[in-house]
């Protein structure tokens, strides 16, 4: 399959009063056509910054993409001018933001906000645009789309607003959809509705999806591949099966053990990860996770682990999987 997106060695810094925050410290990832991939991590791990970099939405200054390549369909997005980038945003790559309450314009009707995308990117007549708006609202499951198109965001509930956001992101049939924590501010029953909708849309329109979330639970149903991010780096990547059944980075293992499962029969003790994520103003030397890791070795504090293959397509950045180490320990 073709790769629609390939990111290599992406680094993003933010200058603050306290110093330079290294929010993203060398991210490598790829996405195949029609594939849904999840980036999972805690707050501050750089997952949203990675997503915003793809759209070139990092505010500069204070932010700066200091290194890396962002190949989208073979074109390096970092080399495009702002004008050219405007043609990519919304048309080729759509984005759903975390907070549907604040990311819609309160002074415009929802219909007009969707129409804006179409007016910007497609030369359609007014009538066709209206028709398409209503079609889109119907596609994302908003009842009464004709009436709803003339309403303002405050007349929508949280779940409905998120649906309207998805309609906007899909307006020009983008090849890639980036969903940045699309369900975080929603209730579980509404979250289930939105996840079901995304699954359906991926099936119907075969859009490639990057789902960014802190909730390992919601990715299991939608995404075929999962990337786990920690302190600005991807520490483990693999298929959903590999990651859930054979987590190979101690951080992933810790995450999976730190929340209870609804379907567990007997009560298993939760094992929290001690400590807290490192300060990215001065990331630790070596592996960023070693101060919290229960299996840290001397080398972890000295040298950064390279990405090591566990099985086909399953990689983890941890010295535990270093071949030389295995020989010694036997």
């Amino acid at each position, binding site marked *: 399959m073709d790769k629609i997106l390939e990111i290599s060695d992406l680094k993003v810094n933010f200058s603050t009063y306290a110093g330079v925050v290294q929010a993203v410290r060398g991210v490598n990832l790829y996405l195949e056509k029609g594939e849904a991939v999840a980036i999972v991590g805690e*707050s501050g791990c750089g997952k949203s910054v990675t997503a915003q970099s793809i759209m070139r939405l990092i505010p500069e200054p204070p932010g700066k993409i200091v290194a890396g390549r962002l190949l989208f369909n073979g074109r390096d997005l970092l080399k495009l001018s702002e004008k050219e980038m405007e043609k990519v945003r919304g048309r080729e790559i759509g984005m759903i933001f975390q907070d549907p309450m604040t990311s819609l314009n309160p002074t415009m009707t929802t219909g007009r906000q969707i129409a804006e995308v179409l007016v910007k990117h497609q030369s359609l007549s007014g009538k066709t645009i209206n028709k398409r708006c209503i079609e889109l609202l119907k596609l994302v499951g908003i009842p009464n789309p004709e009436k709803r198109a003339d309403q303002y965001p405050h007349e929508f509930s949280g779940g409905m607003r998120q649906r309207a956001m998805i309609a906007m992101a899909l307006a020009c049939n983008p090849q890639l959809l980036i969903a940045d924590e699309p369900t975080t501010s929603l209730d579980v029953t509404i979250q*289930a509705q939105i996840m079901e909708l995304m699954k359906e849309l991926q099936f119907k329109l075969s859009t490639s999806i990057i789902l960014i979330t802190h909730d390992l639970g919601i990715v299991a*149903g939608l995404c075929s591949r999962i990337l786990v991010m920690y302190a600005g780096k991807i520490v483990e990547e693999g298929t959903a099966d590999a990651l859930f059944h054979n987590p190979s980075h101690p951080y992933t293992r810790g995450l999976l053990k*730190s929340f209870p499962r609804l379907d567990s029969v007997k009560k298993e003790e939760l094992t929290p990860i001690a400590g807290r994520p490192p300060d990215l103003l001065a990331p630790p030397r070596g592996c960023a996770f070693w101060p919290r890791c229960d299996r840290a070795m001397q080398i972890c504090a000295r040298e950064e682990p390279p990405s090591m293959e566990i099985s086909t397509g399953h990689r983890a950045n941890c010295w535990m999987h270093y071949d030389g180490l295995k020989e010694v320990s036997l």
Partner: protein
Amino acid sequence: MGDILLEVSGLKKYFNVGRGQVLKAVDGVDFRIRQGDTLGLVGESGCGKSTVGRTITRLYRPTGGTVKFRGKDVFRVSAAESLSLCRDIQMIFQDPYASLNPRMTVSDIIGEALDIHGLARGRKRAEKIEEYLSLVGLNPEHAARFPHEFSGGQRQRIGIARALAVEPSFIVCDEPISALDVSIQAQVVNLLEKLQKELNLTYLFIAHDLSMVKYLSDQVAVMYLGKVVEVAESGELYKNARHPYTKALLSAIPIPDPDVEKERRRIILEGDVPSPINPPVGCRFCGRCPVAQDVCFREEPSLVPVGDDHVAACHAV
């Protein structure tokens, strides 16, 4: 089975929202909590679960109904009893950023509780503060610091230390972990469990995260639009949910296992929670219920026993 510590019956709390409209946040809630148990109260946002917690701690005066603590109505007490009730019933708040005074040091925050109840003075006060800080896993040397110097998880520990300082027997935990990161949540949950065992505490644990509630609670009460729709022992509720809303809520929770997810059938509820200003006539869930019958649109169901220690309010059970 322990004695009943807290009994809530027919609890109502209405808010006036202007223009003659009344928001019925809590509209007739009944449950009981046994000494030493944890009751999980779950529901979606706006269902009134936090209002229940705040009414029990007497932050709100109820519109109707009673809350009995050790058999005594908490809203009919003398001033002296009122102060001792404050000692007995404490609360841990949702947002560790907003619930600590940024101008007070940690030792002042915890010490204030000691001062109000006259529990310790001078050297003993400082010792107590240190004792509670180490009890919740914070470094006692940090007592002179301000809340902004701590992370979210640490602040929540300060909130817990503040609640514990007056030696309560009952704590209302209002979404104590929802503002925290996943890896930190487990730290706080384990702490709450440890404290419960050591100090023989009783919890009302309010949350929207059903998997965490299942993990922590002995009993679970499910709320929908100001009403309790189902109460059961926690294992029973998850195995054998009877109310269609509970079933939908349980099926909406993702399970972090791709194999399980593939096999699972979701019950996707249509629409949103109706407004508590004009709740539907009859059963409040009727508009979204997949098994609604005619009677559901006319008559409101009441909680009826459907098993051992298991009640549900639905015409279909």
